[in-house]
């Protein structure tokens, strides 16, 4: 469903006016400000925007319902375009100027990895980072794990799962295509470790630089990897570059199974590839896997999915107008917005638990006290001291008929 900004502008402005109005309120302790730094622009802007929209769908529902203990939730969002330095600056601003109650909805490994030291710096103020959209290791291990709470499974878990799947299919020669930064390194490391368990090593690796657009050629990387004749390629990157890699591989008639991780943004990836496929007349989505950390939003058996779909439909959340450039066509549903929705739902539960007068100092204990919380996704969420990751489940999807569907039969890719 398309939202025309012009038609909905009175509402958007109303929302904006509300937001502006609410910030001082938060400062007065009336509103709960959630500081967000994510990519609202650039090649990875889909991630930031969709994550925001998903979260906002739930926040909207909460706020409509009178907020949490009468206090409204406000997501103060800034764009970092998936770059570490703006992320750091945004964080400082959120903490020191916006007096954010907590940090929420950060997107990306390199950004988050660099923000981590700030959480340590602001430890006295109990600035916690909630549910960053990344599976990287740094925020899951000392010294930063105590300031960060993760909901999703790690990349290591994702990659390890993929490696296990491929290995089980007899695809032992695994190559890695990755973004040359902490995110890619995390995935790479995950693959390496997983392979190491069964005595394998990565047969080939190729990198690309963060921010590489779809238009860029990935032929070099394709050739590098293809030389090693891998049985499968695990791709850790953003959707634009990963789509480009897929395109170039397929264009080179290399139909090796390519598996991406959750961060890639499945819908964006598919969308780009489908569009490219329309132009070239090729189906770029063949043998394309994607591991997910949330269930498929088509699985409406799940309560959370139904709720998600309903609220998304109801509120049609829009990204903050001041942050985006040009037009953005929001996705009706996506794994990312679903993750944002779930993130917000967990956070609301936590905040609710904190009582009417929440204090940052309470956060850690409150979160760590969460145990077996049912979100309506079939698996409970549990935190604890030393366990700052709520979910460990990885879902495997494959592109079929224009969407990623859970892999029904791995045997198809048996080697």
């Amino acid at each position: 469903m398309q939202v025309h900004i012009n038609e909905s502008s009175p509402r958007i402005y109303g929302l904006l006016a509300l937001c502006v109005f609410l910030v001082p309120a938060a400062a007065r302790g009336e509103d709960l400000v959630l500081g967000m730094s994510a990519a609202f622009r650039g090649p990875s802007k889909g991630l930031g925007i969709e994550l925001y929209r998903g979260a906002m769908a739930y926040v909207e529902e909460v706020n409509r319902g009178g907020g949490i203990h009468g206090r409204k939730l406000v997501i103060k969002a800034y764009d970092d375009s998936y770059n570490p330095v703006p992320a750091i600056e945004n964080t400082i601003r959120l903490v020191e100027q916006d007096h954010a109650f907590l940090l929420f909805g950060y997107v990306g490994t390199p950004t988050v990895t660099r923000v981590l030291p700030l959480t340590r710096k602001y430890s006295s103020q109990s600035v916690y980072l909630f549910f960053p959209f990344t599976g990287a290791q740094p925020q899951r291990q000392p010294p930063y794990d105590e300031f960060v709470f993760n909901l999703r499974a790690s990349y290591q878990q994702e990659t390890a799962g993929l490696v296990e799947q491929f290995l089980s299919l007899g695809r032992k020669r695994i190559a890695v295509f990755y973004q040359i930064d902490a995110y890619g390194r995390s995935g790479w490391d995950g693959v390496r470790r997983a392979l190491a368990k069964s005595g394998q090593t990565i047969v080939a690796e190729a990198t690309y630089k963060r921010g590489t657009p779809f238009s860029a050629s990935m032929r070099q990387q394709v050739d590098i990897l293809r030389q090693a004749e891998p049985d499968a390629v695990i791709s850790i990157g953003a959707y634009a570059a990963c789509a480009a890699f897929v395109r170039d591989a397929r264009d080179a008639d290399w139909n090796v199974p390519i598996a991406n991780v959750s961060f890639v943004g499945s819908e964006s990836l598919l969308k780009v590839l489908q569009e490219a496929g329309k132009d070239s007349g090729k189906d770029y989505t063949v043998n394309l896997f994607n591991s997910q950390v949330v269930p498929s939003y088509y699985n409406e058996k799940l309560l959370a999915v139904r709720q998600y779909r309903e609220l998304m439909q109801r509120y049609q959340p829009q990204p903050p107008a001041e942050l985006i450039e040009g037009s953005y066509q929001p996705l009706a549903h996506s794994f990312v917005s679903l993750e944002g929705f779930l993130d917000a739902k967990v956070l609301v539960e936590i905040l609710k638990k904190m009582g009417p007068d929440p204090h940052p100092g309470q956060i850690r204990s409150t979160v760590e006290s969460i145990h077996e919380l049912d979100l309506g996704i079939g698996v409970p969420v549990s935190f604890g001291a030393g366990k700052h990751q709520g979910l460990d489940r990885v879902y495997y999807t494959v592109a079929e008929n224009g969407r990623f569907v859970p892999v029904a039969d791995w045997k198809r890719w048996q080697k």
Partner: protein
Amino acid sequence: MKKSTLITKALLVLLGLFGVTGLLMAGFSAWTLDWNLTKEYQSKGTAIAHSIADSGAEILIYRDSSSIQALIDQFLEIEGVSYVFVVNTEGEIVAHTFSPSVPIEVQTWRGNQQETLVQEARLAGLGDVIDISSPILAGHAGVVHVGMDRQLIRASIWQAILRQTSLMCLALVACMLAAFLLVRRIALPLKRLTRCAHRLAATDSFNVEEFELGSADSAASSSSDEVGQLTQAFRHMLQAVAARELSLKQAEELMRRSEEHFRSLIENVSDVILKLDEDLKVRYVSPSLERVLGVPQAEWANQDFCALVHPESRELVTAAIRDALGEARKSFALECSIPHRDGTCRIMEALLTNLLNDKATQGVIVNLRDVTERKRGEEMRRAKEAAEEANRAKSDFLANMSHEIRTPMNGIIGMTELVLETELTTEQREYLEIVRTSTDALLGVINDILDFSKIEAGKLEVDAIDFDLHDCIGDTLKPLALRAHRKQLELAYGIRCDVPELLVGDPGRLRQIVVNLVGNAIKFTERGEVVVSVERCPQTLLDKHGLQAAAGSANDDGAWLHFSVTDTGTGIPADKLASIFDPFTQADGSVTRKYGGTGLGLTISARLVSLMNGKTWVESELGKGSVFHFIARFGRQRGSIVERKLMKPEALVNLPVLIVDDNATNRRILQELLTSWRMRPTVVESGPQALKELQQAATRGDPYLLLLLDAMMPHMDGFTLAERVKQHPEFAQAVMLMLSSADRAGDAARCREIGLARYLTKPIKPSDLLDAILQELAKLSEETPHEEAPRAKKAGESNASGNAQESEQTQRRFHVLVADDNVVNQKLANRLLEKQGHTVRLADNGKEVLAMIEQEHFDLVLMDVQMPEMGGFEATACIRAKEKTSGGRHLPIIAVTAHAMKGDREKCLQAGMDSYVSKPIQARELARALDDVAPFLASPGKASAEESPASEEASACAGPIDLSAALETAGGDAAFLSELAELFLNDCPESLSLIRTALARGDHDLLAGRAHRLKGSLAVFHAPRAYDLALQLETMGKTSDLRGGEEALAALETEIERMRPCLHSLTLEEWPEGTGVA
């Protein structure tokens, strides 16, 4: 569009400067920057590596690689960092920033575990990098590598250079603009000046105003900078140049002319001028080469000079030149032959000038002159000289001949005349007359031959002196008249009134012609008359003989005269007429035998006439006689057109004169003459007619005051007529002049007896006749003053004896010094002079003359030219010099010379002598010479010519001596001759002994002198053999060749011994009848 080069240059220089500076600076900056940046990058990389190593240690040990990746990622943002990667202790790259993959090279790098390393490398896809590796935790946690991008350094260097270059370019543009403006400020006036200079160069004539530096005035010259000063200076220069231009142009013109002059000199010089280099190669040759040798100029270029010379002389020439150059002679000449183009060989005189050391020339200048013609000319001149020498020898021979012939002739004629003056028997006289006639003939022959030789030799020249034609003809004919009268021939002459008397010409030669023609006529005429007439030559006659051209121009001051000699002789056959004037030709071979003579007379005459630009021809009719004609041209004396002597005194006007002559010609001549004197002549041809006419005149009352009577007339001769007239008292007062054709003894006496006033011999000179008439008329009237008749008086006293001395020469007594080394000649001269009443002193040589004239007074000196010790010329010179210094009177000197050539006379006159006589001295010649010197003779005293009572015939003495000839030489005085003989005999032994001594000693001069003296004496005695021997000896002395001298002397002595009896006979034996009178 011409840019000012100054601007272009300035800009180019700037550009170059900036370019070089820019390049240098860029290079330097690049180097510096590279060095600095490399250093900086190294330290930067090192710092990063250290930083990562420091902060990564913990992470590496305790955390995952993504943390490390996050750590290293942030450093990528630092400028210049190309990559970072971390290797763990196992050597695994656990984190890196490479994309799309880790370069292979890097995978092997381990780095040093202990210390930081810096290395440079080139990586695929990254290019040049500086890799800094730093160990983490002292190598215990791995190694971190930081790659610094060298390309960034390069880029920043390029950027820096670009910035710098841009700055430089800006500065360059600014500088160029400034330079342009500045240079333009200089260049514009300069341009203007250049334009001016161009126009200056282009124009020929200019003036300063034309070059409007006026514009420069305002702009440039007003500014006081260098440009302004330049402009000012240029203006001044322009003015100066303008001034100089003029003089330069003139100088240039002069130069050009001079150059042209010299070039044309070089080009037209008849010499070939060459320049050789030191190898004697021809470096330059003048264009005259073609003219001189027919060889084109180019052909000689760069040729070896020696090779051009004819092979025959090549070696010589080469050697000569090498020698000369080797001796470093400045200039030298040589002769060589060089082939001409036409194949001939030309003799060239080469004048070489060594200018090898001359910086301007550096060569040898050769002047080649074609001397072939000169050489030829020299040969010809030598030949000519030889010919002339031969000719001179011939002339000398002739002169000698003349001398040697005349000397004995002198003796013969002189002696004969002397003898004839003594008392002789009829027989003797007859013989002697024959001798005299023969000698006269002989002398004539000799003279003819000599004259002819002279003419043939071209030695005879025609004088141009003033003379009186009437006198000349008259004087000439007088001696001839004697001959004519002897043959009972009338000799008459008539000169037409319109013939000018005073002429310029050669009277001597005219006389000779007339003598020859008249003599010839007389010779060939048996009876009748010989008439000489002179008239102005009519134009028709001139035209006829092709003398027109000369006549035309001669009208004003010259006169062509036509002479004709008419005889009534045998005539000449028509076939002989053509050759009558050829030498050695007479009308008939038999004639020669009959009349004698060489037959040269006519030839000589004709030649002489030719010399006078005239013409000779003859008309003749056999048996009736001949007429010899000649035309000759004479000048007229200036300012004396008026008749000098033949003025017509008033007394003669209308005077009735009766001319009595049987000869029609004479009558006609006389009548004409008297008429021209405005007298009133009446002519009759016989005595009776004359008496009759006298009678009638007396009856008419118009008596004749003057009667001209011919002495010889048939029936009644002049004397008879005169007696008859005297007997008639009524006629008696008439003056009678007797004109006689024949010179007969007793005529004069008869005249005196009858009482005739005058006795004139025909042909009568008009002047004589006029004198006589005037004198007689004066006597007659007593009171009539003698207008002019000095000669007439003398004539009146002239004796009418048969002596040939017809001249009215005043006989004066002189004191004469005779200088002659030859005793015989001394005697001869002495005798001749003493006979004429002069007193004589003798001298042997010039020195004696000088001494004697100091002591004694002499009226004149007779000086032999050739004398020992001091010759005649030398002595004369001394005398004249002395006269000049002392201012004394002029002592007349008459030269006596044996040489008869014309040059001698002039030599004598040049030497200061007044006249000359040639040996043998003849009485007549001597008299003429005395006449010549007469003006100088101071004390005239009458000297009656002593008559020799008789002449003796010298007895012929056959053998060594020709006695008769000797006698002739001695003037016919036998006693004198014997005297001479005695002198000779006395003198002879001494002479001979001296000659012997001279021969023995080899003294040439003594020999020559003595032999000459002896020879002279021998000549007098006409001893031919002895004379020859003496001459031989003299020649030996002169030529210094004494071979055969002894023999000659011996022969001479023998000959003289032979002569001795004859000479003795002269001295001792009495002459057959009487003795000579001293």
